[in-house]
Structure formats: C-alpha cells, structure tokens
C-alpha cells in the first residue's frame, strides 16, 4: 500500500504528459463552431445572380444541404472549386454558396468562367451573415440538416479526402435521419 502511494506523483505527471501531448496535435485553426446544433441565423439576402430574388433562412430548410462560404479574393476557394464541381455533379445534396464580402460582378464572372457548383448563391456583401455564422475566413463550410440546424462546420478547403472521410458519412447519416422523419 505504501509503495503504491509513491507512484501517485508518477501517475499524475504521466497523466499531465498525455494531456499536453494531445494538445500538441490540436489544430488551432480548427476551432469548434459555437453554432453546431443551432439553427441557421435569420437572414434575408439577395441572390448573387439575380438581385430581385431574396433568399432567407427558410429557403434552406427541407433538405440536408451544404453551405459554402467563398469569395473571389480567396485563394483556397480556388483550390476547393474543382472538388465542389465534382460533388455537385454527383448530386448528393444541394450546395448553397455564400458569396462573402465580394463584388457581385467579379463573383458572377468567376462562376461563368470556372463553372458554378452552387444550387443558389447568397450574396453576403457586407459579411453580416458570415459574422452571424461565426465565419473568420474563407472557405468555410456548414452542413445543415433538413430542419435548418447546423450540424457541422468545416473551416478550410474541402478536397476529396475531407469529403470522403468527414463530410460524406455525416451527410448520409443526416439524410437517413431526414428520410425517417418523412422529408426528402
């Protein structure tokens, strides 16, 4: 018994070591989103391609969807773009773009030139929706369930690996849950 007591400091130090060692491999860029589990913020914004069409948070309900924050000034968005095009062709789920702090003409031209993976584009010119979503850079993507609840946030460009390993399993799960509740 007495011998065991002698090991307590060792155990404590080892415990702290494990704790700190784990911390070394956390990515400080990958913050937890405070919005996971909360509904999409209320908004009312113009569609990028057509200023007369108003998109609201209600528009996004009904289907599991992906919200993708992008801008023409963002180099990582250009890296991400071909992947988004591929996922859009696979027709897994609607991808909504949030054109974040951008110029309308520039953004439209970019989409015309490079292809448009988005079901609809929300024009967030002054970044207010981005602010409400807790966006701190582009690209960022949000997985939203059929009730309009944010289920997952991914900060950084999506590529094939992120899609296969992280997003797709969650999308399938959410879509199965949606089907059970009778939505599409």
């Amino acid at each position: 018994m007495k011998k065991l007591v002698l090991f307590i400091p060792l155990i404590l130090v080892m415990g702290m070591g494990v704790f700190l060692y784990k911390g070394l491999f956390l990515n400080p860029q990958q913050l937890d989103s405070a919005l996971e589990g909360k509904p999409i913020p209320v908004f009312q914004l113009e569609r990028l391609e057509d200023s007369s069409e108003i998109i609201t948070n209600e528009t996004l309900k009904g289907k599991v969807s992906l919200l993708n924050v992008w801008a023409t000034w963002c180099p990582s968005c250009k890296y991400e773009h071909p992947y988004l095009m591929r996922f859009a062709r696979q027709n897994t789920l609607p991808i909504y773009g949030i054109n974040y702090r951008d110029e309308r003409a520039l953004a439209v031209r970019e989409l015309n030139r490079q292809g448009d993976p988005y079901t609809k584009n929300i024009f967030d010119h002054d970044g207010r929706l981005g602010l409400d979503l807790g966006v701190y850079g582009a690209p960022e993507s949000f997985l939203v369930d059929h009730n309009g609840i944010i289920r997952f946030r991914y900060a950084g460009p999506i590529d094939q690996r992120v899609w296969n390993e992280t997003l797709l399993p969650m999308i399938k799960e959410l879509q199965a849950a949606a089907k059970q509740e009778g939505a599409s």
Partner: protein
Amino acid sequence: MIKSIFKLMGAILLSLTVMSVYATPVDTYEFKSADNQKRALELAHSLRCPQCQNQNLIDSNSPVAQDLRLEVYQMVDAGKGDDEVIEFMTSRYGDFVLYKPRMEAKTYVLWLGPIGLLIFGLLIGFIFVRKQRITQVEEQEISAEEQKELDKLLNRDDE
C-alpha cells in the same frame, strides 16, 4: 558626417515615438460619450480575434477583427451591457474569444487543477518533512554488550 548620423537617429527616434502612439489601428468611429469609448475599448481589448489567434480585437487588423471591433463599439453605444457583448461574441465564435475562460463544468480542471496540484504538493512536502523529523528524534538503544565494544573502540582511538 556625424551631424547627418545624428539627424538620422533623431528621425528614427521621432518615427518610433509617432509609431508607438499610433500602434493600434485607429478607427474613425465616433462614440456617443467618452465613457462608452472607454468601456468599448476595454471590452475589445479583452476579446481575442478569432482569425489571428494571438491578438485581441484592437491589435489585429484582419477584416474579421475590424468587423467585430465595430460591432462591439456599436453595441456599447446602443447601451448594451458587457454581458450582452460577450454573449454575442461567444455565441458565434465560441469560448475561444475569451482570454479568461468562464468558470463552468468543462473548465473546472483549468481553474482548479493548479490549486489542486499545489495542495497535493504541499501535502507531500508536509508528510515528508514530518517523517524525517520523527526518524531524527528516535533514539537508538544499545545493549550493554554493544556499549562495551563501543567503549573499547573509542579507547583504542584515543591511544
């Protein structure tokens, strides 16, 4: 030659002092009152920029920090309390924006851990010191035979 070096040094010194005065980004925001300004600046100083990680909202020049700074200023000017501003920030960017984490279930280890470790250390130290004192005080009993032998040895040393 020396004169020009002095001039150059003077210029550098001057620019340094000017720079230190304007070290933080100056916003053109006009506060309704000096009190509001003081409170808003304090708040913005206490909130971390979510993008740059190691700067507060005032020190950072990133677009997000600028937006958030302005938001904090406007909220303060609109008469919102500190709690409301902090709630606004944490509901969007999480507890990360707080330099000083809140006391709640998941931060107990953070707040109480060091105190626990200190108490544990003091306890160990206390037990250790006590044990040593006890062993020092203990007297050794020597049998008559041993005493005889000891005397013999001591006497021999004296010779």
